């Protein structure tokens, strides 16, 4: 289209410079919760001299990575203004499918493992293939569940809360059905690779933490530098407007629930690798923790706000509270009360910001 030459270009005389501390993370809930986290860590340091030991820090890093990947996933959903209560069940179901498939494929006589003449089992195919297939099977399950969630919410227009609450029940039930309540254990020739990939570490950094960092960076790029991310935010800001401006709302919504389910599935598989088992009650009621972590980190359940950094900060905060209270040898009955108090105090710090403006 043709543009008019501007006689006098628009200038903004009443706009000052935004100071660094009024911008980006410093003006966000994430920033203030991070501040609260730092304060909390200092307090914990004085409550227990062992808090800042290398071993404990490794532990904390591993433990929070265990829910952080799922939190990254649910953050997408929360940004669109949705919610996914099925993440806990999904973690369990994916883990279970993965280890069942792994065991199944490793059974002598399957396509992958043959009996050698001397009666010992021999892996006939590429090493790692069984692992790959079983992890894919677990993720595939998650994919399908995410698709069903997305379909019900985006196409049929059901409420995300009810749909995913139903799915929580469905998926957990299926986990009981397939395992007959017994849970399952990864096994077979590839189990060792599996354990190495899930609970090993690289130069002292736990593997799950590395995955988390990679996924968080990818997520940051996707959210802020791709059209898809833009659409996710637009959906959460004003769904009607998103629809009117031609954003494929249905597709974006479905994608978001699929991402969330996949993240939960991956999370479950990693946990099961660390546990060495996929019990049927694994990750029960983790959904509340995962949502809480995202929300504490600054995602807004009303939609339109959230990001990977916040998700991680929220998870770290929850883990530091848990770990710290045990280290500080607080009476267990009081622990639960204190967890609640600290959570509320941590988000309260964010109010400093509104007072300051």
């Amino acid at each position, binding site marked *: 289209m043709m543009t008019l030459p501007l006689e006098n270009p628009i200038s903004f005389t009443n706009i000052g410079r935004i100071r660094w501390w009024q911008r980006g993370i410093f003006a966000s809930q994430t920033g203030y919760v991070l501040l609260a986290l730092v304060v909390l860590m200092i307090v914990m340091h004085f409550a227990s001299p062992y808090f800042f030991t290398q071993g404990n820090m490794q532990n904390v890093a591993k433990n929070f990575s265990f829910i952080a990947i799922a939190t990254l996933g649910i953050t997408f959903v929360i940004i669109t203004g949705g919610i996914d209560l099925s993440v806990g069940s999904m973690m369990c179901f994916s883990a279970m499918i993965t280890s069942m498939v792994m065991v199944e494929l490793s059974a002598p006589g399957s396509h992958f493992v043959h009996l050698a003449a001397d009666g010992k089992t021999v892996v006939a195919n590429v090493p790692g293939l069984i692992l790959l297939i079983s992890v894919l099977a677990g993720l595939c399950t998650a994919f399908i569940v995410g698709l069903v969630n997305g379909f019900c919410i985006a196409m049929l227009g059901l409420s995300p809360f009810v749909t995913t609450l139903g799915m929580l029940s469905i998926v957990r039930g299926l986990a009981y059905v397939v395992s007959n309540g017994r849970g399952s254990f990864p096994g077979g020739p590839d189990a060792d690779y599996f354990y190495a990939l899930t609970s090993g570490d690289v130069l002292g950094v736990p593997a799950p933490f590395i995955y988390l960092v990679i996924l968080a960076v990818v997520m940051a790029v996707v959210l802020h530098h791709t059209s898809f991310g833009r659409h996710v935010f637009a959906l959460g800001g004003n769904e009607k407007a998103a629809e009117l401006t031609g954003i494929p709302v249905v597709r974006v919504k479905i994608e978001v629930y699929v991402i969330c389910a996949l993240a939960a599935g991956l999370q479950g598989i990693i946990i099961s690798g660390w546990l060495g088992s996929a019990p049927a009650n694994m990750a029960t009621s983790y959904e509340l923790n995962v949502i809480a972590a995202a929300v504490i980190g600054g995602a807004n359940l009303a939609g339109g*706000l959230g990001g990977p950094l916040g998700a991680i900060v929220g998870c770290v905060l929850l883990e530091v509270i848990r770990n710290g209270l045990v280290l500080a040898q607080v009476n267990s009955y009081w622990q639960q009360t204190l967890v609640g108090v600290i959570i509320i105090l941590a988000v309260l710090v964010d109010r400093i910001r509104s007072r300051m403006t």
Partner: protein
Amino acid sequence: MASTGATPVLELTGIGKEFGAIRALHGVDMHVHPGEVVGLMGDNGAGKSTLVKIIAGNFRPTHGEVRFDGNAVHFYRPIDARAVGIEVVYQDLALADNLTAAANVFLGRELTRKFGPIALLDHKAMASRALKLFGELRSETRPDDLVKQMSGGQRQAVAIARTRLSNAKLVMMDEPTAAISVRQVEQVLSLIHRLKEQGVAVMLISHRMPDVFAVCDRVVVMRRGEKRADKAIHDTSPEEVTALITGAKEAA
């Protein structure tokens, strides 16, 4: 003036729309030719916005047929209408409050740069393009501000700027000048003139009589969901149109 011989871009026959017991539209026939500017006027609640939303694929009509570029069309979603070349400035602006002005302007058609297989947003290009569009409208709107924090007129400028991005065949503006200042009103009117020159059909909904008489070739008056008049602008007068709107005069 409009080339009445050519096929109309838009042709409506017998359009009706009911919301439960409310008959928002009833038997509306209408056509718009390329390069023609049609003013749509009517009292509050006359059904103007509803008509726009039906054409834009936002609602489906209860009765009647919409033809675009000579073909009967059924839009299921707004994106369908956009795809054939219909651009709309909605009365409620359709902005995502949590995004910046530039992001809103480019919503649904972001500019990207390819990095290998990955297309990343081109923030700079979008911001500078948006700034230029706001400049054209003489609006003091900053591309990087959140829409949430903007004044009513700045918001409207963002919504208008959107229509400038594509090569639309029909632009519908639902009260585009309601909240904007004198100077920007002029710019919007001159924008409509330019669209007309380029052969784009424009449908302007406004309660501001002078604006309608300044740019429209034809004026359509609605009353309580029915079309009451459809006259070339030089065959009518503001007084007559006012009488038609208020119902003092039944039809013309």
